[in-house]
């Protein structure tokens, strides 16, 4: 349910950029890490609900999930963390360091060109 507050912050950020561009936003791409625990369906639903009647109404959200990375202490390779199988995908060792998770970012907004 934290997606609701994220949707509100997203609306604020997109509205600010739309005011600068003086254009209607159509699509937005955001990215998040594993530990942001974002459920796409819930975020899109919340975003759709709070953008009703705003300039952002009808916008499409594209959500990119950046996988968490681990650094293996045995083979020194970095690898994608699979939460259901916590071991190095290269050598199988369980001795690894968690690398910092990706932040929640508003990456890009697509605007309609004036007609």
């Amino acid at each position: 349910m934290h997606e609701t507050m994220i949707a509100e912050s997203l609306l604020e950020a997109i509205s600010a950029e739309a005011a600068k561009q003086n254009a209607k936003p159509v699509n937005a791409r955001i990215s998040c890490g594993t530990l942001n625990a974002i459920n796409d369906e819930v975020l899109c639903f919340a975003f759709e609900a709070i953008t009703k009647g705003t300039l952002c109404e009808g916008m499409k959200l594209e959500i990119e999930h950046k996988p968490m990375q681990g650094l293996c202490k045995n083979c020194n390779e970095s690898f994608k963390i699979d939460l259901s199988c916590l071991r190095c995908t290269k050598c199988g060792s369980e001795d690894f360091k968690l690398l910092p998770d990706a932040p929640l970012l508003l990456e890009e907004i697509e605007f309609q060109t004036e007609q």
Partner: protein
Amino acid sequence: MYKVNVGKKILSANEEYALKNSQLLTEQKKLCLNMISSPGSGKTTILTRTISDLKDKIKIGVIEGDIQTEIDAERIRATKAPAIQINTDGACHLSAAQVNSALENLPISDLDLIFIENVGNLVCPSAFELGESAKIAVLSVAEGDDKPAKYPSIFAKSKAMLINKIDLLKAGVQIDFDIERAKADARKLNKGIEIFPISAKTGEGLAGWYDWLKREVKKLRL
């Protein structure tokens, strides 16, 4: 159509307040622990017992987060510790701005340690930094030993984890909770996490938790 690269943190407004809180706490050398758990894991009971048992050693204040009511702040105030209640009116987590105004209303200079009791929820509160010194995950045995595996985010981000209500495991109640499994799952993602199996009711295991709190408070005084 044209695209604009933004590259902005979506929760930057929350992070600005979190930074303010963190600066205030660091300047004043106060320990601030953000307690996160499911509803009913026993956070308030852990706090009232900790405050009473440590009253001659550590001065504690509490910021209470709940959707509604002043019930928890009143339980804390009954121990004579100062408590500020925040009602989120439906929101599932505390925000850094709410904690910022609560900190203004606590007598911080008289305190060593400030506990933030977050809204009962294992997912959402872990996504919002409050400017705390550390997060503490609380789990009770009645919830099941699979929680660290199912809700990795909070266990990965916490400095310590309390496994509460261990008295139930010995009381002849049918609970399948394997403490070693919960510990192992939490450590898979967080090797350094301190784990304290406790009973806030009987007092079992609390000595280790208290020693850890005293050490953490002392580190800041140096």
